[in-house]
């Protein structure tokens, strides 16, 4: 294994700690939450900045509009709720009041994807990245671990424009460097290799690193890229990598429709046609279960990435 971890933590705690840091450094940052303060780890920000926090109750549409209004006056609003209620429930509010109105709102979305676990499909949104990446003016970011989520939370405050920041519920390996600044739109090469590129975001980056170890033991040279910014996409990073490896696997905790895989397919189709394999949820809803059981059942395990990489290499 080229990366090790000694600690696991949920990425939502990275958001909470990043927000706390912003509370101290950025007086214009305000936070809104729709009755999920504990789940989003916002308590510390609220304790330190009570007048800059707005409890919205269970009314996400109003939260998005209120955030847009705050942004109009120059505030930097961070909204907090689950990914499902941050996107599907409020798509028209994101579209008209935030994206089209060019408002500097940071939509921070927890409990995304299958790894939400036992709550089941009503809450396991797998369509959110696709929905938000289709909205003009929005930046879409999915960091891979606690440290990176904290760094990304801090970074988006200094980025002018609407941002969708997606993170999750489960305890997950911490393997990135806490000192490394988060650069929006700049892919992070985790491991260099020449036989195949594995490109992932969010929780799946760790799975890609595990897959690399297995493939390396079998003699394959694997490049692992953390594509934490799905939009705007780092086109140069994709093309540099496939120019070298000649094939790619995209891995994401998202529906195969509308995710990173399709964005990458467009880029390589236009510029450098080569085999691509997709590790993603095959156009279905999730269900109740533990995160690991669900990743296994829906084809998002380490083994699925290993097999996809071998298929991609064979097709070269």
């Amino acid at each position: 294994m080229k990366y090790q971890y000694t600690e696991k933590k949920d990425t939502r705690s990275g958001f909470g700690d990043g927000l706390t840091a912003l509370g101290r450094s950025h007086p214009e940052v305000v936070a809104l939450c729709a009755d999920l303060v504990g789940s989003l780890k916002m308590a510390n920000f609220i304790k330190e900045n009570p007048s800059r926090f707005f409890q919205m109750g269970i009314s996400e549409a109003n939260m998005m509009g209120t955030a847009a209004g705050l942004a109009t006056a120059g505030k930097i609003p961070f909204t907090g709720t689950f990914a499902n209620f941050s996107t599907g429930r409020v798509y028209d509010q994101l579209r008209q009041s935030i994206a089209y109105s060019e408002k500097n709102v940071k939509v921070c979305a927890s409990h995304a994807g299958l790894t939400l676990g036992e709550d089941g499909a009503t809450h396991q949104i797998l369509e959110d990245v696709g929905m938000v990446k289709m909205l003009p003016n929005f930046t879409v970011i999915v960091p891979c671990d606690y440290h990176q989520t904290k760094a990304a939370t801090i970074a988006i405050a200094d980025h002018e424009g609407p941002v969708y920041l997606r993170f999750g519920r489960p305890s997950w390996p911490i393997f990135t460097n806490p000192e490394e600044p988060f650069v929006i739109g700049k892919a992070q090469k985790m491991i260099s290799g020449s036989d195949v590129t594995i490109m992932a975001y969010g929780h799946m980056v760790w799975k890609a690193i595990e897959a690399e170890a297995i493939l390396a033991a079998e003699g394959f040279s694997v490049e692992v890229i953390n594509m934490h910014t799905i939009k705007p996409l780092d086109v140069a990073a994709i093309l540099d990598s496939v120019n070298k490896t000649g094939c790619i696997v995209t891995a994401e905790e998202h529906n195969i429709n509308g995710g990173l895989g399709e964005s990458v397919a467009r880029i390589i189709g236009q510029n450098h046609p080569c085999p691509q394999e997709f590790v993603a949820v095959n156009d279905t809803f999730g269900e109740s279960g533990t995160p690991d059981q669900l990743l296994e059942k829906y084809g998002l395990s380490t083994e699925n990435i290993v097999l996809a990489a071998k298929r991609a290499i064979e097709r070269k």
Partner: protein
Amino acid sequence: MANVAELEKIASQVRRDIVRMVHSCQSGHPGGSLGCTEYLIALYFSIMKHDTKFNMKGIEEDLFFISNGHISPVFYSVLARVGYFDVSELATFRKINSRLQGHPATEEGLPGIRMSAGSLGQGLSVACGAALAKRLNNDPRNVFCLMGDGEQQEGQVWEAAMFAAHNKLDHLIATIDYNGQQIDGPVDEVLSLGDLAGKYKAFGWTVLSCEGNDMSAILSMLNEAIDQTGKGKPIMILMKTAMGKGVDFMEGSHKWHGIPPNDAQLEDALNQLEETLGDY
């Protein structure tokens, strides 16, 4: 501060602008625009402290947010007539490469526009956010918001209504254009609002009402609303208007919600509206 006679003169010209704009592009919404003419003129020419040099943040200014964005003709005409941009630009309404989009948009950089509106139900939430920002900034000015009555059927309006009262946004003055009409017919037939005043009172608002097509009445009502600020409750004005006011064949009918006049109808309408400030 203009007097009532001067404001009424402006109203006649704004109504001419409205019918000429929708006629020129053969689309748009004359009915609600004509009905809300007195209200917008009262706000921009008399009631609000605002700067036509336009700064998005609007610090130390009164702010207005339109939620029923389809009445953009009256909004654009009033913004132009009060000095945000040249009146000649009204000729570009709804045409290709215009800053005067069918529904208000910030993307084109039209001075005076702080939010897009068109998809209904969102403006009161935005006004709540702007009101919170004023409170945070210790900015004592007020936030105004206009909604349609049919728009009250949108659930988000009631989320915002609950939020505004809970947070004692008592510098928020919302108004409903209570013309009783929506696209498919009378509001009472489409989906009745019931006791709208009672509903807002029950939500914790101070509720006022007035005749919206009477310049003196709307001025006194807005001044009374301002007197009611700072008392712990958001303020709602139920403003009774006639859709299509000022053009006899349009008045009071939902049929003129979203269709333009033809050449003969334009001539008929303009004959009823004195050109007081010069057509654009």
